[in-house]
């Protein structure tokens, strides 16, 4: 028990409206994938909108109504990695280009939060911006360059 949990955000621009035929397969799989996340070892929390099921009604950039956000909290990088790449979630991930535009800039970030904290959209977007501007670091990193949880609670 480190006193820290791992927060995760990824953003993506959908290629067509959520209620259209292009995204139908993606939308249809969301409940199952969200449930799979909740059942996965090390899952702590995921961001949901007012509908209470997922975060698809959030628009983290008010100038971009096709930009979706996904944000969750896990016990460790390993737990998140296992869910992301070693479960049925991989099925959705391997079809990402059918539903999401390619983003040339960083579109995800991981960072450590004190246990019990719930990240806000603004906080999550700030971490993505940090990776974009400075590359991976202890305050915002990626799966490729993970950073360990802070050693002392004072560093939160």
């Amino acid at each position, binding site marked *: 028990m480190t006193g820290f949990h791992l927060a995760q955000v990824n953003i993506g621009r959908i290629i067509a409206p959520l209620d259209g035929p292009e995204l139908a397969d993606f939308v249809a799989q969301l409940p199952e994938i969200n449930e799979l996340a909740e059942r996965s070892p090390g899952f702590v929390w995921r961001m949901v909108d007012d509908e209470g099921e997922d975060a698809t009604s959030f628009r983290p950039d008010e100038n971009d109504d096709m930009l979706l956000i996904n944000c969750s909290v896990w016990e460790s990088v390993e737990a998140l990695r296992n869910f*992301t*790449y*070693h*479960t*049925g979630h*991989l*099925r959705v*991930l*391997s*079809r*990402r*280009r*059918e539903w999401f*535009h*390619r983003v*040339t800039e960083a579109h995800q970030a991981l960072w450590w939060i004190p246990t019990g904290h719930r990240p806000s959209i603004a906080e999550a977007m700030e971490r993505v911006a940090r990776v974009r501007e400075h590359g991976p670091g202890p305050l915002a990193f990626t799966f*490729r360059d993970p950073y360990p949880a802070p050693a002392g609670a004072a560093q939160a």
Partner: protein
Amino acid sequence: MTAEDSTFAVLGVLGDDVRRRLYRHVAAAPGEVGRDAAAEAVGISRSLAAFHLDKLVEAGLLTVSFRRLSGRTGPGAGRPAKVYRRAEGEHAVSVPPRSYDAVGRLLAEVVENAGLDRELQAAAKAAGAAHPDAAADDLIEVLRARGYQPFWDGETLRLHNCPFRALAEDFPALVCGMNLALLEGLAPEQWSPTMDPCPGGCCVALSKNKNH
């Protein structure tokens, strides 16, 4: 000794036919293998199997642990037996030296950055379908020949080895998507490949369609 020298040394250990058959048996097994089971599978004595298995451990090709095969614990349960499984690392050697792994990594990075997942999947599916073994009667043998190490898990055919492991770890969405498409092309139509990762193995599992 250079890295290449040590790879040659490791692979030299597999030059012995009995050892190679033991290695193949243990490496393809979904779980740990005891000495008796390995000896029986290869058709040799237990002590000869023990000798060769330990040579494979020394070379770093297998790892060993101890387990009570009786399933009992406590006093009277007997001494834990040595059990073997495939070691994590991989050894590749090319004569003369070639570095396709470096090329693979570079290409994967460019393909990923360019967002060409679907183009890669289309090419992989076509390559699978164009393979001379595609639609062969014995899919299990075809998969085995390509390094997948298939085993039955109830009604599901799972694959104990990922032939693209190193790349799949670095580019999971890209390479696993490619692998699924490849197997979709390769598998005869009575089979349904799906993305269903198994721990330490391949991301794809296959099942037989009910109407065949």
